[in-house]
């Protein structure tokens, strides 16, 4: 929280001093649940012998959960700085379940559970199978094409994660309140894309000038037919 305030302050200072770049800020509005999420018991149950049962997640406000799983990125061939990210496996869940990386990034998949896991993907942009491996082992994958990559585990069908490989470095996830911010966007006219696993893609045009931040609001879902179209396109 402190660091986030600090970053905001820093960004504000930068925008005041150097006006050649501005931010895109926006909100995600989700008014109803889109996902019927079921999670496994987070506790370490393997040794105790209690069965690992799926149950509704009650830890988080469901709408905040939906909002925090929305990924926003800008379309277009822009600058991209690859990163090294981690998608771990803990308590039979992928952590995090939604990951955003710019194209060219490398993701590591460490197994932190006392049991074997298997990581594979059959997505169009990247398909791979990292095989079964136990605790303490990890495998890495480099994503060279933008797109949505769904990751699963052969051994545990209920485990799934989505890696959004964005075409450029301007990509982020909304927070629980639905706020998001893409910093230091060069002035121009952009198509901002919001993606939700169940609801699909939503596009809004946003203009960023040197003196003005771009503001955008996504209302998810749209009409049924639009969302259907988006689902089809995916």
């Amino acid at each position, binding site marked *: 929280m402190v660091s986030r305030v600090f970053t905001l302050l820093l960004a504000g200072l930068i925008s005041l001093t150097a006006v050649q770049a501005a931010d895109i800020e926006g909100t995600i509005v989700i008014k109803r649940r889109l996902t019927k999420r079921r999670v496994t018991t987070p506790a370490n149950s*393997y040794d105790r*012998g209690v*069965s*690992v049962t799926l149950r509704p997640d009650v830890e988080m406000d469901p709408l905040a959960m939906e909002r925090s799983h929305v990924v926003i990125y800008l379309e277009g061939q822009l600058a991209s700085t690859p990163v090294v990210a981690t998608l771990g496996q803990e308590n039979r869940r992928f952590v995090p379940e939604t990951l955003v990386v710019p194209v060219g990034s490398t993701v590591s998949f460490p197994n932190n559970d006392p*049991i*074997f896991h298997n990581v594979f993907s059959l997505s169009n942009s990247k398909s791979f199978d990292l095989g079964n491996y136990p605790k303490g082992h990890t495998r890495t994958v480099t994503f060279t094409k933008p797109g949505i990559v769904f990751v699963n585990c052969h*051994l545990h069908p209920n485990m799934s994660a989505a890696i959004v490989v964005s075409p450029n470095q301007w990509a982020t996830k909304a927070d629980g309140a639905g706020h998001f911010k893409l910093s230091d966007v060069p002035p121009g006219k952009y198509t901002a894309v919001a993606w939700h696993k169940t609801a699909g893609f939503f596009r809004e045009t946003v203009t960023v000038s040197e003196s003005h931040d771009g503001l955008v609001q996504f209302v998810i879902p749209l009409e049924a037919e639009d969302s259907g179209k988006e689902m089809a396109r995916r």
Partner: protein
Amino acid sequence: MRFATRSFLWSFVPFTLLLLGSFWTIQMLVQSAVRDGIRSSLRQTHVSIAHVRTKSELQNSQFLRTLGENASLKAGVQLLTSEPNRAEARLTVQDQLREICASLDVDFLLVSNADGVALAGVMRVGDQLVAMDIARIRPPQRGFLTVGDRAYQVVSTPIDQGEENIGTLAVGERFDFSEFTTPAVLAHNGKVLKSSIPGIPAEEVEAALKSCSEHAECEVRLRGETYISLPMQSIYFGEGYVLRSLQSVDSASHPVQAILRNVFVLAGVGALLLAVVLGVLSSRSIVKPIAAVVSRLHESEKTGLLPEFHPELAPIQEIRELTESFNRAGCAIREGRENLHHAYVEFVKSLAGALDARDRYTAGHSRRVSELSCALAQAMNLNAEEVEEIRIGALLHDIGKIGIADSVLQKPGRLTKEEMALIQQHPRIGRTILEGVRGFQSYLPVVELHHEDWNGTGYPLGLRGEAIPLAARIVHLADAYDAMTSDRPYRRGMSGEQATGIIKENAGTQFDPAIVLTFLALGVPAQEAALASTARDVRTLLDVGEIEPARGRQLLH
């Protein structure tokens, strides 16, 4: 034993035997009916259980096939096959199995590889699903599996990858007897694994079942109760496993037998009462007339008489016959008595005859005295019994003369004083002779006292007047008359009139005047005179035996 007791026993004992016999028979019938019922109900239960099972097994097999196609499980089995010694790999599969267990609510899951070696398994213990120690477990294709003290019913399904079999999944449910409405026992090679007979530990059941052959119905005794045990044969439970259902014969037949017992106790009490009543009534109907007969007999015992019974009084044929035969017997006895008496009389007569025959002159004396005495008695209106008494008493009146020497008795001429005293002994001698003879008691007064005089000058006792019995007085007169009218060696007999005159003179001194009056009224001498000539001749002829007695009697009357 009294007749009532007897008749009670005769009616009650057969009743009791009949009741007991029928009670026993019915009990046996009930028992066998109950047995049959239990058998058929056990069989019925088995059939329906088998039916339900086949149905559920069909569903289960479809469900199991789906379970065998579980992709993640396949991946797990492949992982475990490729990494057989990695604990994490086993843990992974156990975790998968736990999840399946929890979602399907089964109690036992076990995967084994293509060779049948167990790889990993979990089972439900309490509310936990714990990993199994798989070292010694080799699950059957289907049937029972015992892990520790738990018995599971296991079904298996193959796990295939493509065309290759990579393993087997065994799904088990903890076996319980919920399907059985009766107690049941699960045994493996004779060892009882599980028993649902309440209150009886498995070891006892095991011992009781030892005698049963594995696949046959049998009867066992447990804690004094008989059970019918039927092995379930329509379902195969695996090598050595037998599932038996049991049912208690006793508890099934108990209510019926209780009712039966009540009925029979009621019937028994009823029969007892009936027997008592019938016994009392029947014995009374028989005893009463018999008692009447007996009391009459008691009476006759006292009186010495044999009265006649009136058979019409007895309502029962047998009793009537009894009284009739009593009557006949009484009759015969009376007749016998009379005969005996008659014989006595005849004997006495002959005795008297013998006495008379000692002396030609006294021949017929006793008879004549008797006849005259009878005539007098009849004239005095004595009854027949008294007349008879007099008749015989008169016949015997001089019997005592047997004891007196002929020299004295037949001495012609006057007797000396001593000889007279001797003669006067004869009434006493007569009494002594006849005293010993039973039935002659009534003649003793005549014999002893026929020489007593009215005025008390007679012998032997010197009685007077009314103190002398009437019979003796009568015979005294008749004796005197005959003596006077009879011839003696030393004199001829006087005529009737003369003798009558002497008697008349002696009335009131020697003779009872009343009898003398009767004698006079009888007019004996006149009759005698008319008869004398012929009678005397006939008598003489009779006595010497020259004419037949019948003819003689004819002539005399």
